[in-house]
């Protein structure tokens, strides 16, 4: 390709990219810049927002054990949600891919329903199930397992369960996509070479579907980190996560600079963690390839 033609191609490509770039700038980049800028303002309870350019709120957040505790809890619970979703989602994905026709359709519907259901309904469902007068507690009391209702709702446990229920679809569909593209002859080849069902799974299916697991984890983790409605409704103020803190500052205290600061911190900790895991994974893979090359 000659340079003039290449330039022409590039120009065409740029023109094509113009509209999405403009949209991205207006509806995403600009608000982000606004939040970042706003987070550097000061705040006075009476006068409201005081224009400034100081990182005071960042210092406040990062030196206060309460705020750091909420951030740590958010990260911890999101990791739990991710792990539970991956472990529970994998067999479901496998089953989904291996099933056919109506059963498969039914499974997909079951997966997607919580996603499109209002969080209020999801939360109420769990309340009916796990509340102090809920079905589970009634059953336990009737069976004599316990005298008093066990506190199950408004705990970290219900938060994890609720988020897994809502976000499982992302995990299952990601894993299913990678299982779907797997050439089943590879499994048959492994079997013929002497691998039993489980060994074939561990040596072939699992490693080849890991990209799907990674995608699912990425989606579920970032969505858990920023989830608001489900934690607020079924875990409540007793299990506070970052999104609730941000909501509180924005809507109740009107301290937008601090809310902006916490949003930026949430964003950075989410993307930072994901990036760290990504780099680690790539490094690990490179090391494996090098090791295999050295061996052979």
């Amino acid at each position, binding site marked *: 390709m000659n340079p003039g033609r290449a330039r022409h191609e590039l120009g065409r490509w740029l023109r094509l990219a113009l509209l999405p770039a403009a949209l991205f700038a207006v509806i995403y980049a600009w608000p982000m810049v606004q939040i970042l800028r706003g987070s550097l303002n000061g705040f006075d309870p009476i006068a409201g927002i005081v224009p400034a350019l100081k990182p005071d709120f960042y210092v406040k957040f990062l030196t206060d054990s309460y705020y750091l505790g909420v951030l740590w809890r958010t990260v911890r619970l999101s990791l739990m949600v991710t792990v539970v979703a991956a472990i529970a989602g994998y067999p479901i994905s496998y089953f989904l891919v291996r099933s056919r026709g109506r059963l498969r359709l039914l499974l997909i519907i079951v997966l997607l329903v919580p996603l499109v259901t209002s969080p209020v309904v999801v939360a109420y469902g769990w309340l009916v199930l796990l509340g102090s007068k809920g079905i589970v507690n009634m059953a336990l009391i009737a069976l004599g397992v316990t005298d008093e209702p066990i506190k199950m709702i408004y705990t970290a446990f219900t938060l994890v369960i609720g988020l897994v229920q809502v976000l499982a679809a992302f995990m299952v569909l990601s894993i299913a996509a990678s299982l779907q593209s797997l050439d089943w002859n590879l499994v048959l080849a492994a079997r013929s070479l*002497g691998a039993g069902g489980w060994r074939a799974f561990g*040596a072939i299916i699992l490693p080849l579907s890991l990209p799907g697991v990674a995608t699912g984890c990425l989606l579920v983790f970032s969505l858990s980190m920023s989830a608001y409605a489900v934690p607020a409704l079924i875990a409540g103020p007793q299990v506070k996560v970052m999104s609730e803190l941000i909501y509180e500052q924005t809507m109740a205290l009107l301290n937008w600079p601090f809310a902006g600061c916490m949003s930026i911190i949430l964003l950075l900790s989410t993307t930072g963690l994901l990036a760290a895991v990504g780099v680690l994974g790539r490094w690990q893979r490179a090391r494996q390839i090098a090791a295999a090359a050295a061996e052979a």
Partner: protein
Amino acid sequence: MAAALAMAPGLEPRDGSAAVDAEARATYLEVRDLVVRFGDYAALGGVSFEVGAGERLCLLGPSGCGKTTSLRVVAGFIHPDGGAVRIAGRDMLGVPPEARNIGILFQSYALFPHLTVHENVAFGLRMRNLPEAEVRRRVGEALELVRLPKAGPKRPSMLSGGEQQRIAFARAVVIKPSLLLLDEPFSNLDARLRQEMRGELLDLLQRLEIATVLVTHDQEEAMAIADRIVVMRAGMVEQVGGPSDIYERPRNLFVARFVGESNVFAGRAKPGAAGPQIDVPGLGRLDPPEGAGAGLAGAVQVLIRPEKIRVLPRAARPPARESYRAAATLERLQYLGHRTEYRLRVGPHSILAWRLSESAPQLRPGEAVTLEWAKADTLVFAGETAA
């Protein structure tokens, strides 16, 4: 189609050696009356064949004939609804694929993309928990065998199609399998490479002397590699025999037409005192050699292979003994290098004939010619219509 009846044209078998050899060998793989049903559809309706020790058997047939299903039953991937599979006398039904010690070369090669070539070939040995030193030695030998000794550290995706196939072969034979299954091994290669790999694979198989079952829809591939061929159609075995048996003495019209090209004419047989007389409209009356085609009556199909027909300048010489003649017009002539193809017209029939170019007569389109073919090369099958 009616049960076809070959006329057994040549009395002396020209090439029965492969079949005789196979009988002399001990039966190694025995497949007996396999039945496989998918819902209402019978994929296999009672398929039987045997493979002798070190023998190469080919399952040949059009797609949907059940050849791949048979292979999968032998491999243990499909549990049959009926019948038996025995390897070296041991019943294999209920034995899972991983315990059968069968090497398989898949159509798509099925190399593990996340493992290096070395790891791919080592896979079966690792599953047998062999010591690392032995694994390394045997992988080295296997890569040497397929002439890719330096491919070990590479990923399968870095190899060409032919190289991938060789690695897949190395992976299948490194475990010293008791049986080798090849599933359409050449269909993913381009024409030139296919020929090359075919020869190479045959060399390897002859060297290793492993009992082999090859599945293909390509008759040339089957004839080139197999000692014996099982021609299948719609879940049934049509004929079993050596390549030349199948080609020269097909048992029915389906086999005849599937294996090689042929000219087919519809005719009627009338029982006569000295055997049946066969009338083929436009071609005349054919009287089969004595003892052949006894009992034929009614509708028949007459089949002549293109290379059996001699194209002569009109009335060049007196007819050869025990042969038929027909007057024809040359419509088209194609010089294809090693051979020359003639398209001829005899009455309502369009006939294909070919000769080796060096012995091909000099003819021009439109010329009147005489066709001549031996009685022994005329195959007659009972039956109404072409299959």
